[in-house]
């Protein structure tokens, strides 16, 4: 369980073989491309290939055609497609476009007319209270009439203009607007229009096709709208018939064009010098031989592989290598951030600790089995990573359910099994062992913190980061300090005199001092000169940092008490469910049990999942893991119908 080893690949060849090489790179599904200009730099002889993509316009054309026909393009196998050149493909697209042009033009016109009528209907609905013929109103010579809507706030201000020669009539209102009309003598219309403009009155233009009163107009427009809608539906049916005929071929044409387009696009990563192209990328070491073999058919192409450590200019991407058990947990690691290439892959550690902690906190045989079965069904259908994780969590919960003796909240069901195994009684009653559970939770926390510190020390030494590995709060000094404190506390509890003067001085005070001086000591180990800002600044900043470390040890340790807290809360909640079921009638009791279990599973499951993740990220990752890696993304064609 580590990070996939990469090889740095340099591919060189004549420019005329570039397209073929790029196709092979895409087909390999294991080539992560980098910009060659990063390694070759820039000079007058170095060109970055940035020609216009000849496949862009035909691709745009087919996407527009599909959009006009309301058809979703998908990526399909295009081996059967007889068109090879871009001209042939473009020609076919234009042919289908012309066939559908007339229908699409009529659809567009109808859609616009329908939109206009719907808009008019919306306005007229607010004027339904007006029982006067529009034509008569608009025929007035000496009075101007303006229809529209006035914002609610502006309506309050109309009283100010009560002395002006204008009447405002409202027919409808909502919380935002008053709908109506105002009438003004023609000779004063300009001034009054300005006043209403300043009040943000929005005029509604009544279309010429509106006749009669508002109610009559509403009826007529609705009829016209229905007729046009029917015609539009008919046209859509014709489009569908045409689509059924051409759909497969269009999908194939799209897939081929997208493939060619995306391949061509990769040219922006390629550099050219004197008629030769240079392509750089990474390939997993395990697939490198297979990758090289892909280019045997190209006479001018040479592929050179070397370890990425030999060239510090490009950081290799990270591809996590995980076993069957830990694979789905990579989702949690990726959420936090991938590890840098060559560093520690925490996925297995996360998988084990997450599964154990979840199982401890959610322990119930019945609920665990239900979770396992449910997750297995979901994972089989959807291949969802969370479902795959839930299978493992369910099994862990079942195992711990056996330990606690709990089956869907029933604490007695497994007692015969314990007696058959030789126990005098049920060995572990959760609610009777509160101190043990809470103490155990702290013990788990201490163990995990010590483990993460050890991981941090090992990775620190591997990366030659001595400040972190030796003098850091999770390095040797931190481990010594924390371990000694815990050891001393345990020993004292057991009656031993542990905190002797040498013990305190050597294992507690000395590590603290070394942590305080970690920056200059780290520089010393690397044989570098340490530059301090000033003695006062140094003391102040490091004092507070060490104080923060001390607080961190305490808070991180105590944080694990939530493991015990959730064990108890789960047991207590199930006890409540069982009590309610006992109180219910004979018929109602099973229902209460089922519903109660569903409720507890859903709520506790979600809470426990989040809390364990929080422990992973805050209490554990912060001690040994920083992320910062780039994901390994092999080049491939994206068959979404969107052009960047």
């Amino acid at each position, binding site marked *: 369980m580590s990070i996939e080893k990469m090889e740095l690949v340099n591919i060189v060849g004549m420019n005329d073989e570039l397209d073929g090489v790029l196709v092979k790179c895409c087909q390999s599904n294991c080539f992560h491309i980098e910009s060659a200009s990063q390694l070759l730099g820039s000079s007058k002889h170095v060109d970055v290939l940035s020609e216009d993509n000849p496949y862009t316009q035909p691709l745009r054309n087919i996407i527009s055609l599909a959009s006009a026909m309301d058809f979703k393009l998908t990526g399909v196998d295009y081996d059967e497609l007889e068109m090879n050149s871009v001209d042939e493909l473009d020609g076919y697209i234009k042919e289908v476009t012309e066939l559908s042009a007339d229908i699409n033009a009529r659809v567009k016109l109808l859609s616009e007319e329908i939109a206009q009528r719907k808009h008019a209907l919306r306005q007229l609905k607010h004027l339904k209270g007006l029982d006067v013929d529009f034509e008569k109103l608009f025929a007035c010579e000496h009075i101007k009439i303006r229809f529209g809507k006035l914002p609610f706030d502006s309506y309050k201000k109309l009283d*100010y203009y009560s002395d002006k020669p204008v009447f405002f009539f409202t027919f409808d209102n909502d919380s935002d607007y008053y709908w109506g009309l105002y009438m003004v003598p023609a000779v004063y219309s300009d001034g009054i229009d300005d006043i209403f403009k300043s009040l943000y009155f929005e005029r509604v233009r009544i279309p010429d096709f509106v006749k009669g009163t508002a109610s009559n107009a509403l009826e007529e427009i609705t009829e016209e709208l229905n007729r046009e809608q029917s015609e539009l539906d008919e046209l859509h049916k014709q489009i569908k018939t045409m689509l059924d005929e051409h759909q497969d071929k269009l999908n194939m044409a799209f897939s081929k064009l997208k493939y060619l387009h995306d391949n061509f696009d990769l040219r922006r990563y390629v550099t050219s010098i004197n008629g030769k192209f240079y392509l750089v990328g990474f390939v997993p070491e395990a697939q490198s031989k297979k990758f090289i073999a892909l280019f045997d058919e190209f006479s001018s192409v040479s592929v050179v592989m070397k370890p990425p450590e030999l060239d510090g200019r490009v950081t290799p991407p990270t591809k996590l290598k995980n076993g069957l058990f830990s694979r789905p947990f990579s989702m949690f690691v990726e959420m936090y951030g991938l590890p840098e290439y060559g560093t520690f892959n925490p996925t297995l550690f996360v998988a084990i600790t997450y599964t154990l902690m979840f199982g401890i906190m959610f322990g119930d045989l019945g609920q665990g089995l239900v979770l396992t079965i449910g997750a297995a069904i979901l994972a089989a259908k959807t291949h969802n990573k969370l479902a795959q994780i839930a299978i493992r969590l369910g099994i862990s919960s079942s195992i711990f359910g056996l330990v606690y003796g709990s089956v869907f909240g029933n604490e007695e069901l497994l007692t015969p099994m314990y007696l058959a195994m030789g126990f005098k009684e049920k060995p572990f009653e959760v609610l009777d062992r509160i101190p043990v559970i809470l103490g155990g939770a702290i013990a788990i926390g201490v163990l995990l913190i010590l483990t993460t510190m050890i991981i941090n020390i090992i990775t620190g030494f591997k990366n030659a980061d001595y400040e972190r590995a030796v003098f850091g709060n999770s390095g040797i000094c931190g481990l010594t300090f924390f371990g000694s404190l815990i050891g001393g506390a345990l020993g004292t509890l057991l009656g031993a005199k542990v905190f002797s003067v040498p013990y305190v001085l050597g294992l507690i005070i000395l590590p603290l001092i070394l942590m305080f001086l970690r920056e200059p000591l780290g520089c010393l180990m690397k044989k570098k000169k340490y530059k301090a800002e000033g003695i006062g600044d140094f003391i102040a900043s490091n004092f507070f940092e060490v104080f923060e470390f001390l607080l961190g040890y305490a808070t991180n340790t105590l944080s694990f008490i939530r493991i015990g807290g959730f064990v108890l809360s789960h047991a207590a909640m199930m006890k409540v469910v069982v009590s309610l079921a006992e109180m219910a009638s004979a018929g109602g009791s099973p229902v209460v049990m089922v519903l109660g279990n569903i409720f507890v599973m859903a709520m506790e499951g979600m809470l426990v999942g989040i809390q364990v993740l929080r422990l992973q990220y805050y209490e554990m990752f912060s001690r040994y893991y920083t992320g910062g890696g780039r994901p390994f993304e092999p080049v491939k064609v994206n068959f979404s119908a969107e052009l960047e």
Partner: protein
Amino acid sequence: MSANSSNAVVAKARAIYGKRLSEADYTELVRRQSVSEVADYLKRSTHYRDILAAVDTNTVHRGYLEDLLRKNTFAIYSGLCKFQQLDKIEFYRYDIVNKEIGQILRCILCLNTDSEDDYISSLPAYLIQHARFDLLGLAKAKSFDDILAVIRHTGYYDVLKHVKPDANGKYDYTACEVALRTYYLRWLGENVSKSFSGKTAHDLRFLILTQVDLINIINSYRMKTYFNTPVDDIKASMLPFYGRLSEKKLTELYEAPDNDEFMRRLGRTYYGRQLSQLDDDSLEKQTTELRYKYAKITLRVSQSAPVSLYAIHFLFELEVENLISIIEGIRYQVPSGYIEKLLIK
């Protein structure tokens, strides 16, 4: 107010804080080409969608859009005040009092410029039901006596009743403004002392007096730079309250013989030390940024309801000012890079 109620208000204020516009929102907005596009973006993608729900973004008037944005901020403020029944405490009327004073001053300005009819269009109608005097009555005022008649039963009457017109029949707007703002700050201070104590009162005073200090700095700077106002006139126009800057320190600023000396003296003050550069172009923006910074920090750390409310309200007012800068910039086709420099974020 119980500790639980205070916690609820603080939590609510912080939740509302999370809805503020992000850097990405501002970047999108300054790239829009028209007021309609700005309105459309605000309606589709930000917390202003509720207030703009019924607005047709294709036809909305710029002025109406700006009014709605201000109304939204007022709604946030009044919503928080009603939450946990805070509005029963007089302090929480602070924004209404501030706006009432703003309306009186606007009315005086319209009278002085013989443009009484302009007042009604700028009157924020949402304030009408909250004000303690008749705002529509104020709109109808044709003289200073009419204004006094409208505000007769309020504290503003005693502040303004002795103001006399000059030889041209105009009323000293600056004197009225100083008098009313002084009244407001005194009212604010009294209510803070009456209703709160301890850290809450201290934090509120810090926010308020910082605001006053920075207003005094900017106003004195403007008067010196643009109007060459004599020192005595500057002193008479300043608000007589002092936060981190004592009266002596402020007087030193007023008495600076020129701009450069003003900046040098400002650089030695508490506020000046926090400004990254002391120059004419950015002083106003930097002082506002300082207030913005204090408000953000206060909101993050305070456990007090009035302090959180005061801070969040200021932040939203600033957000609206940013949006208005964007709208006006787009309207006058100012380059997006220039608009972005004006924003406080």
